């Protein structure tokens, strides 16, 4: 469950990134957040992974109240939320396998457990054969699938995908969206932000529209409209 209650973010230069935004996302939901550049989508995602602190308002994810979470617990919070970005954010000097394993190493998972979990997740995203390739040697779609594998390998309750198809061609974009749908069917909440009208309209899922820092539309089965 994700709950934002009248969240406002004002940056030091007085830019209002979000203004009184409230939304409620149920477990296992698939939600698409749309909005023009600068509407506040990125701020929303930064809030969810606690890279940003709201100027006012309340954020609760799962059973964690972001106001009361201890600073030293932020890494543990981030382990429960998988994030995927437009620019993949893979380490270029690690192979696909190592990039995925890295997320587990960071959280102190035992090597035997890593050896068990990583191949499984690579199979899920369809990258078993590219496990020992470096990010520079694979396509954009494969890189994004690596990033998704990395986000998923720790079994997060929530997967946040910030314009995951922004750098991909239509074919690869659809592969990624289908992968996200598959992950959602397994029970993970998916929050997707995108500019791709075609994808949003075809998904027939809940759409939250943000404009100038406000939630202007929230439809059960929505369409891309700004």
């Amino acid at each position, binding site marked *: 469950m994700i709950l934002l209650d009248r969240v406002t973010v004002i940056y030091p230069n007085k830019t209002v990134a979000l203004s009184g935004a409230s939304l409620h996302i149920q477990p296992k939901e698939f939600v698409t957040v749309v909005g023009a550049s600068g509407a506040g989508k990125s701020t929303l995602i930064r809030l969810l*992974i606690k890279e940003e602190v709201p100027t006012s308002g309340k954020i609760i994810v799962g059973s964690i109240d972001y106001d009361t979470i201890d600073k*030293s617990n932020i*890494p*543990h*919070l*981030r*382990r429960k939320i998988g*994030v995927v970005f437009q620019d993949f*954010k*893979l*380490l270029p000097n690690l192979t696909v396998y190592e990039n995925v394993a*890295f*997320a587990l*190493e*960071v*959280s*102190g998972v*035992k*090597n035997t457990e890593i050896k068990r979990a990583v191949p499984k997740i690579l199979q899920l995203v369809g990258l078993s054969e590219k496990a020992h390739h470096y990010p520079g040697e694979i396509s954009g779609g494969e890189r994004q699938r690596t990033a998704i594998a*990395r986000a998923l390998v*720790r079994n997060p309750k929530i997967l946040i995908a910030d314009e995951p198809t922004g750098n991909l061609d239509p074919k690869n974009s659809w592969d990624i969206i289908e992968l996200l749908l598959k992950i959602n069917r397994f029970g993970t909440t998916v929050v997707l932000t995108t500019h791709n009208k075609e994808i949003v309209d075809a998904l027939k899922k809940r759409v939250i529209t943000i404009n100038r820092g406000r939630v202007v539309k929230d439809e059960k089965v929505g369409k891309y409209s700004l």
Partner: protein
Amino acid sequence: MITLWRVFKSGFRNTFRNAWLSTAATAIMAVTLLIMTFFAFSIFFVRSQLNEVQQKIDLTVFISDDAKDEQIKALQNKVLQSGGVESVEFVSKADALKRLENSSEEGKKLAKSATEIGNPLPASLEVKLEKLDDIGGINKQIRELPEAVIITETSYDSRDDNRKGVIENVIKISNGVTRVGAILSIVFLVIALLIIFNTIRMAIFTRREEIEIMKLVGATKWFIRGPFIVEGSMYGVFGATIATIALIPIGRVAGQFLIDKFNAGQAMAYFGTNFWLVVLCIYALGIFIGAVSSWLAISRHLKL
């Protein structure tokens, strides 16, 4: 435990990844450690030489031939009781002659002719001092005693001023070496700190993407910081290794020179038996410098 191992592993890997920066940091670390060792040894050496000089030079109080035994005894007691005096030994006229006889071939001849003219050598009190610096003051103090009437002269006021000068010079050199050593050591310490600080800062900068990703996948603060501390400490270990390797031939050559020229056998032997302690100190110092400068760089440039 497994996390600690991973932190170390990644620290090692990062050290070798930035070969040029690592080389510079290691080199300056080695130079700094060598300089600090050199001055630490110099201070130790000068001090021990000073100690030896101190053992050799004491205040000799010559006593008039007319002095009675009680008078000498009284003076000896008084001198012993005055501050800064370690011991007082009475050397009679006969003892003095015997000493001269045993000192050398020339001394033997001199002693022989001295006997012929009826032993002109004076009896004396040999005063050992606690601290060399006090020699002038103590001399004065002894001279002012009521029992001092039997004193003809002392080694300090009568004999060669030269010796006084030597003592003062040795003290001056010792203080000078300590001061210069301390200043140069601090200067190089600061240079080493700055260079390693900058190396780590560069490393943080070149790895900012990796750091960001680590944060995103939920790495704890220490998991991100740890490798940089390990990296800084590695420069200490490498620098100390180079310094130690350089120290062995330098120590051999310089040691032989010091033994030949300055009769420094005792100091060198001390250095030799404590060689591993010295090496341990060099490593500890290197790791300390590396870790501290790394820590400073992290706390300034790695915002988590």
